[in-house]
């Protein structure tokens, strides 16, 4: 809005003042219009001109005698309505359904878009900012003391099982591992963690890295000693 008192009004300002004079503007528009009228002489002049023109038109209409006798036309219309009511029934007033506040809110596409955008932004921030927890990581399950799991409940159950089997032993968990050699996991049942041994290939630099997920194939089962290198053999 231009606050200058000497500059001409823009088209936007003129439309605002027109709607203000016609009493067809919103709360904020009315506020801006009133402020513009107070601060701008041109705006005051514009509003006065509009009001004078409106009053002049009304006065002109009121001063002119109608050449047509309207009472006859009104009587004719009443007769026509009565005749129509015989065949079509009485006229029923059309109930203008006043939409509820929610319907007004929801009917606006922009409002829906704004709410959806705010909800999406909040959801994204929630997921981004949420701290990671052990149970929420999605490892590949291996089982056993060297275990990878995908739920907190299972993790706790696995720890409990391991504790029962091996006393106070706790698990080292591997989500995934990759490298330029073969992996061997060396674990002593009496110890608390395992040793990850990488056996390099003869030409490790040129060989493609081997990626290994913690699949059941490297499951460490201390109960049976399967797939586990006993302490005596690491090579």
């Amino acid at each position, binding site marked *: 809005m231009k606050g200058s008192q000497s500059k001409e009004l823009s088209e936007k300002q003129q439309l605002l003042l027109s709607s203000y004079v016609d009493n067809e503007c919103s*709360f904020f528009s009315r506020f801006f219009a009133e402020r513009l009228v107070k601060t701008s002489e041109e705006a005051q002049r514009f509003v006065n001109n509009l009001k004078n023109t409106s009053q002049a038109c009304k006065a002109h209409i009121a001063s002119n005698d109608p050449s047509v006798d309207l009472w006859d036309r009104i009587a004719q219309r009443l007769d026509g309505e009565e005749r129509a009511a015989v065949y079509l029934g009485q006229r029923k007033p059309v109930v203008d359904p006043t939409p509820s506040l929610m319907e007004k809110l929801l009917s606006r596409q922009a409002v829906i878009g704004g709410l959806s955008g705010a909800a999406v932004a909040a959801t994204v921030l929630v997921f981004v900012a949420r701290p990671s927890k052990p149970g929420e990581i999605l490892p590949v399950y291996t089982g056993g003391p060297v275990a990878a799991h995908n739920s907190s409940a299972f993790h706790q159950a696995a720890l409990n099982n391991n504790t029962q089997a091996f006393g106070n032993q706790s698990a080292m968990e591997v*989500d995934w591992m990759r490298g330029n050699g073969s992996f061997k996991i060396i674990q002593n049942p009496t110890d608390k*963690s395992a040793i990850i041994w990488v056996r390099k290939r003869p030409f490790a630099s040129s060989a493609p890295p081997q990626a290994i997920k913690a699949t059941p194939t490297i499951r460490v089962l201390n109960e049976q000693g399967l797939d586990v290198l006993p302490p005596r053999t690491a090579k």
Partner: protein
Amino acid sequence: MSHSCSRFVRHLTLSALSCAALLYAGHLKAHAADSCEGTKVKLVVRTIHASGARGGEAQQASGESTISVENSLTDLKPKLAMLPFTSFRLISQREEEISVKKKESIQLPNGQTLAFRPMYMDKERVGMWLSWKDTDGSDILNTRIHFDADESVLTGTDYRDNEGRILAIRATKTEPAKSE
């Protein structure tokens, strides 16, 4: 007037809902920051050289008594006894303090590098991403593991003939009152 009021109410409601959503998201983010990202982790990385390869079934049968371990590696003796070497010597020890979810990289004595990123650290467990690279930049080991806090995790690889290079990694939660 009623029309303008209803429009005003709509605008106000939309603004309030958007602000509420953003405030809630900001609160969650701050909570996450307070609960995890401000935590400091002290990482101790010991590089150990293993030599004196042991072979046959008789090697590990004798257990810890037949291996030679420096005094600074006494706490690792039970673990080192599982490896097929007779002598273990500490080459270097590095200590780094780093915030959770921050990445750090250290240079190892033989030109290898170790990069790590603690993902979380609570009272008992720590989750960490590790990348152990060889001198030529290739991955010796790239892994993500979870282990007990204040416990050493061992990983090793072959180094020359009948020798090995071992990394002992221990993570401790840093507290202001504690001193190492």
